[in-house]
């Protein structure tokens, strides 16, 4: 079983709750997951405004050669895999934070790319299995930043791909509600939750998101959120209940217009039928 926290730290949220506390909570969750069963696997991806990066497992570390110069072996008797994982994650996050500069005021994060990379990774792991073995995967997104509206189409493609592969997408939202993630969780069958108290992030992660899908049916979990599936019209970006859809490019409009602005096809307008009055037959004069 593999689990992927997909972390989106772009802005620290408040003075009490900083990125390092958030990462601590995520690492606790990751350790708990790996400790549950020996065959559980974990991958952590950080997603920021300029790209996404695999924190664990990282390319520069191959986990199999335990050997000789293992500097990370801690003396307190902790399970080596967990301590190695923690150290790696911390190091990679430090690398990222020093490398990227936050330019401008962009507070949105490019989540669709990270989800796509996660799906490719899961796909690769599934292909590498022996015949007859199964792996059940899910993706957990811990999100503090806001949605990026430009990403709608890519996001939907990624969600449908995840649904086809039976991969659940869970979402743990720290700051503002995200409509895209609500739709993702609803379509794939995962859990969406907005955390009321951010200081207790570790608790929520362990209580709600640690059990897998079979165990969830036996627990009493937060009720599903009401998802707004109304479409936004292309002209004003308002949510509409009844709209007009172009049959060629499927763009949605709130008012009838003779030309589609996306694909520039001219539409036929149904004119009311003109009924010709019937000519009365004139009686032939005798």
């Amino acid at each position: 079983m593999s689990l992927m926290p997909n972390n989106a730290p772009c802005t620290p949220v408040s003075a009490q709750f900083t990125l390092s506390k958030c990462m601590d909570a995520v690492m606790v969750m990751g350790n708990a997951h790996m400790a549950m069963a020996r065959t559980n696997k974990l991958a952590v991806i950080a997603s920021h405004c300029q790209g996404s990066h695999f924190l664990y497992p990282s390319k520069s570390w191959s986990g199999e050669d335990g050997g000789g110069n293992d500097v990370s072996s801690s003396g307190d008797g902790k399970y080596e895999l967990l301590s190695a994982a923690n150290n790696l994650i911390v190091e990679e996050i430090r690398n990222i934070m020093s490398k990227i500069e936050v330019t401008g005021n962009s507070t949105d994060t490019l989540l669709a790319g990270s989800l796509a990379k996660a799906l490719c990774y899961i796909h690769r792991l599934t292909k590498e299995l022996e015949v007859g073995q199964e792996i059940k995967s899910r993706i957990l997104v811990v999100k503090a930043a806001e949605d990026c509206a430009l990403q709608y189409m890519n996001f939907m493609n990624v969600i449908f791909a995840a649904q086809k592969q039976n991969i659940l997408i869970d979402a743990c939202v720290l700051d503002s509600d995200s409509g895209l993630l609500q739709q993702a969780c609803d379509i794939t069958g995962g859990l969406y939750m907005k955390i009321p108290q951010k200081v207790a992030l570790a608790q929520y992660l362990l209580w709600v998101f640690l059990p897998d899908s079979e165990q969830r049916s036996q627990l009493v979990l937060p009720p599903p959120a009401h998802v707004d599936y109304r479409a936004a019209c292309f002209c004003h970006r308002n949510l509409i209940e009844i709209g007009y859809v172009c049959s060629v490019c499927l763009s949605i409009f709130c008012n009838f217009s003779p030309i589609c602005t996306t694909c520039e096809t001219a539409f036929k307008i149904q004119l009311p039928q003109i009924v010709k009055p019937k000519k009365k037959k004139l009686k032939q004069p005798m």
Partner: protein
Amino acid sequence: MDEEPERAKRWEGGYERTWEVLKEDESGSLKATVEEILYQSKRKRVIESHGQVRLGMMRHVYVVIDCSRSMEDQDLKPNRLTSTLKLMEVFVDEYFDQNPISQVGIITTKNKRAEKLTDLAGNPKKHITALKKAVDTVCVGEPSLYNSLNLAIQTLKHMPGHTSREILIILSSLTTCDPANIYELIKTLKSLKVRVSVIGLSAEVRVCTVLTRETGGSYHVILDESHFKELLMIHIKPPPASSSSECSLIRMGFPQHTIASVTDQDAKPSFSMSHLDSSSGPGLSLGGYLCPQCHATYTELPVECKVCGLTLVSAPHLARSFHHLFPLQAFVESPVENLQGDRFCQACQAELKDKSMFSCPSCHSVFCVECDLFIHESLHCCPCCIYCQTVP
């Protein structure tokens, strides 16, 4: 009839020496050749997209299944009929996955008659239950192409002009018993802009060749069961729209899903309108999808409101079809040696072991063969391009 392109038949060609494809290497093993063949077959799966061609997104497809005596033949295991019906279930599922706002109907033909198994509907469950029940039908008599096409036309001619009208025939018999001149019917099909495609299970039949050529469809004969599946899957992609199909704005509703609990004061249980036809009896439910025009309740989407006639869909249904309209470009193949530095696939973080790698033309990131296939078949978006693309 008009002149037909003369294609050389397979038996008219030269003698094929198929054993020459396999070559042994120095140690006598065939491993390299087998891997090469597998690699080529993987690459074949990434088909070229149509490009900037208008597609028929809202489709009305009638599938005609031949249930005549030749379907009891056991060359497809356990017999042709069972194998066809099973593949049809897969087809229906995939079809509604790729074309969520389209409709499918099923017609069977045997004993010189044709009858409708299911009507044109947008809900896959009805079709799948009907297909499961049809496994027990007795295959008898001869099929009738004329009657089945006629039956399909009765409904298709009333469909609005902006939809694409298609008929897919799965014909196993080499004969057909028609009450009137089928060439007249072909002319009618052409005038109604119906596209007919045929999948033959036995051999090529001339009347099918003419039928598909005149109406603009495709005609294939299967080689074995996996080829049958491939041919069926070709028909799932939306076809290019004919130049004469009208484009119009279709009025659609986007209902909200209401979940009410018993403790709400305003919540009143209601019958779902979609259960009016079903035999399982009406069920009272609290909440569901409310039609924005007449407030009738429905349990599932997409559906056409029975009260006011408005088509009800949800935004993800339309989003499912977007990847047909904005297809992903094919990636550029190049040998791995050209890459300096670390050789890692940027999507799955695996080391690049194959002899070639694929790079996206816009963002130049590098992917391995497996990721390339996965991206083109399921994801439909490049994981690294997302940072520089502005999308509608």
